[in-house]
């Protein structure tokens, strides 16, 4: 295993600082600035090839595992004497230099699942041992009671399980236009206004509907904005920028970018996908800087699994387990977190995880969303991911 000195030092420092802080700051009540922070989740759908994304270029085993798909040493964007980024990740290299990128190595969990569906379910619910019913973010939102009619959004056709909860405060959408209200809505709204005078379910229905209408009017007036973003992911990120600029005060926004299931002829496809991820997230972050939002937004980039260490005979890689995830933002503790998994000591051809994803979630909950993580992800120790 490669131990990062920088990471080691940081962990030591972090331990000291956490002891100096008052414990359970979140327990002191609702956060002072509601909606002040928004967590963005980007799911790289299909299982991203971690080994060719964050490359342990000094490890001889890399060439053994990847005789065909290995990236030429001269093209790897080296960030230190051990680790480098895929050549297409110019955007991430710049974020790294700006101290806005945290790389979280070896993300996984015990007894990994290799089915896209089930593995996604596990990452969306943080429940590897049972068929889950609510999402981890849904439970987190439920844990922090709020009367706000809108708390989280997903750019998706179907609500992702991560955001499933009992409350209506989660909205999925693909296009702001879908919130445009039909003709005659004022007359309709007037009926609900008069129902507010009634009692019980009728009143509850009216109040909630009118709140939802108000939110819908706001969303309908938005349009995607921001420079330096392109393609499908870029379009979705431009919608996120518009949402962040509005006064909707969203706590969570999730989006998905697919195509990472590279079983065959991976090289060019993976290159294109990573270029879109790196360039678009760089553009997104630059836009947040311009808008003065960089410190209140963090973007977590994850996948349902990484890919097999050894390449297959079709010039691709099969479903794997542990992989590097990313956290981007003005407030993140930049650098490498967690140890890079061994390239020698594999588990049936797959990397052994070094960082339980629930520790990452716990860190995001405790230090960014300011929600007590214990009730959501159990006893996993929160990872120190924020400066």
């Amino acid at each position, binding site marked *: 295993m490669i131990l990062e000195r920088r990471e080691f030092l940081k962990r030591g420092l972090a331990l000291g600082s956490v002891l100096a802080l008052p414990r359970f700051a979140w327990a002191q009540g609702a956060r002072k600035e509601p909606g002040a922070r928004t967590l963005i989740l980007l799911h790289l759908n299909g299982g991203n090839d971690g080994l060719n994304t964050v490359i342990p270029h000094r490890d001889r085993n890399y060439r053994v595992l990847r005789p065909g798909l290995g990236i030429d040493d001269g093209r790897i964007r080296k960030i230190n004497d051990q680790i480098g980024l895929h050549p297409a990740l110019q955007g991430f290299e710049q974020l790294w230099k700006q101290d806005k990128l945290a790389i979280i190595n070896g993300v996984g969990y015990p007894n990994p699942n290799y089915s896209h569906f089930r593995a996604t379910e596990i990452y969306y619910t943080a429940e590897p041992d049972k068929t889950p019913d609510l999402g981890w973010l849904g439970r987190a939102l439920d844990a922090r009671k709020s009367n706000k009619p809108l708390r989280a959004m997903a750019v998706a056709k179907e609500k992702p399980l991560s955001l499933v909860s009992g409350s209506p405060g989660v909205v999925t959408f693909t296009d702001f236009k879908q*919130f445009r209200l039909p003709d005659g809505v004022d007359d309709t709204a007037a009926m609900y206004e008069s129902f507010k005078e009634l009692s019980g379910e009728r009143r509850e229905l009216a109040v909630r509907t009118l709140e939802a*209408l108000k939110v819908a009017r706001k*969303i309908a007036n938005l349009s995607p904005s921001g420079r330096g973003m392109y393609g499908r992911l870029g379009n979705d990120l431009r919608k996120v920028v518009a949402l962040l600029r509005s006064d909707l005060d969203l706590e969570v926004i999730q989006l998905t970018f697919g195509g990472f299931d590279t079983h065959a002829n991976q090289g060019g496809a993976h290159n294109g996908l990573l270029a879109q991820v790196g360039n678009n997230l760089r553009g997104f972050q630059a836009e947040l800087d311009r808008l003065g939002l960089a410190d209140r937004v963090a973007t977590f980039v994850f996948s349902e699994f990484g890919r097999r260490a050894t390449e297959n005979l079709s010039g691709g890689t099969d479903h794997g387990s542990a992989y590097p995830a990313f956290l981007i933002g003005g407030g993140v503790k930049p650098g490498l977190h967690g140890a890079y998994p061994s390239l020698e000591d594999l588990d049936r051809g797959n990397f052994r995880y070094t960082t339980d994803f629930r520790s990452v979630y716990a860190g995001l909950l405790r230090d960014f969303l300011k929600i007590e993580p214990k009730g959501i992800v159990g006893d996993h120790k929160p990872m120190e991911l924020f400066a």
Partner: protein
Amino acid sequence: MEGATAVGHLLRRAGFGATPGDLDEYRSLGYRKSVQKLLDEIDRPTPADPDGFDPYEPGAIQQLWLDRMRSGQAMLAEKLALFWHGHFANSNAKVQDAQLMWSQYRLFRSHGAGRFRQLVEKVSRDVAMIRFLDGNSNRKGIANENYGRELQELFTLGIGNYTEKDIREIARAFTGFGCRHHDFVYSPEFHDDGEKTVHGQTGEFDGDDVIRIITSLPACHRFIAGKLLRFFSHSNPTDGEIADLAKVLEKTGGDIRSTLFVLFHSPAFLSGAHHRVLIKSPVEFVVSARRATGAAGIPPWCHGALERMGQILFRPPSVKGWTSGTGWLSAAGVVERFKAARRFAQEAAPETADSILDTAFDGSVPQALAQTLAEASGRDRIALALASPEFQLA
């Protein structure tokens, strides 16, 4: 409630609301005979799948089920199938075979009103369920506890009424229940025939023994009684109301039809306090709007609308089923209902403008809406009626 109000209430709860045509029929039958008619219709055989129907196509199975709900043939049987679909909430997102989802629907449709124990026996052999809860990986020595857990937590007993040991023992009992392609198979070589202890009873149990044991527990009767009350009657049944209905389940050997008969005649169901207290799910809203406007079938554009409202048949968001009540009132959900209301009005039979107030409001327009509706005419009136708060409530 009595008279037209009670009949309208029954049609919304035990079905998908009235059409202008059948309202007179049910009213002249009166309440008791209307209940009987709805219960009797359950015995009508499930219609044969129409020519050209492609059960491999997820859109086609949703379309056909919506059309059946709309048709009003065996309305209670379809409503009950919807109840069980939300209860044994399997999703084609995992099953990945619409034909299996469709045969599960046919199971709910044909056995949904029978004895609960028998339904659980059939569901435990249903291939979509076995795929959904990983039956094939539950084998002697390497038990997969998914089904053992959900069977108790979500399907029969509810949380707090079983132990982790019960889960493990039940998983062992179900070893050997599996599927190959589209068929249930029992594989003795995978079955753990050792002794198990389940809810205090010990024996060399298999899956059916477990079902016999847990479906006769008082907790199971209470769990199913509570769910039936919350779906068909009101969202906050009292312990006493649940206990009373649980008693019916106990006495009738878990007979759902008898239980519904008692439920539909109970004072709580017919209490004015429970008139229009359930927020319609998107499917209920769409089907009831289509029925109220006397329009045939469910138009294809409704699939996208339902998706944006948050309810796709055969794709519940998790094994816990769909949300309920105000959970449906998201910004996207509300906008979509209002847009759909206008579209339903445009597609309505023109004479509906005269009958809509009767079908949508049981003939008595709520005071708070009277003026707005009186000032509107033609299709505007229909659209307003369908978008009105009263119409969102079953």
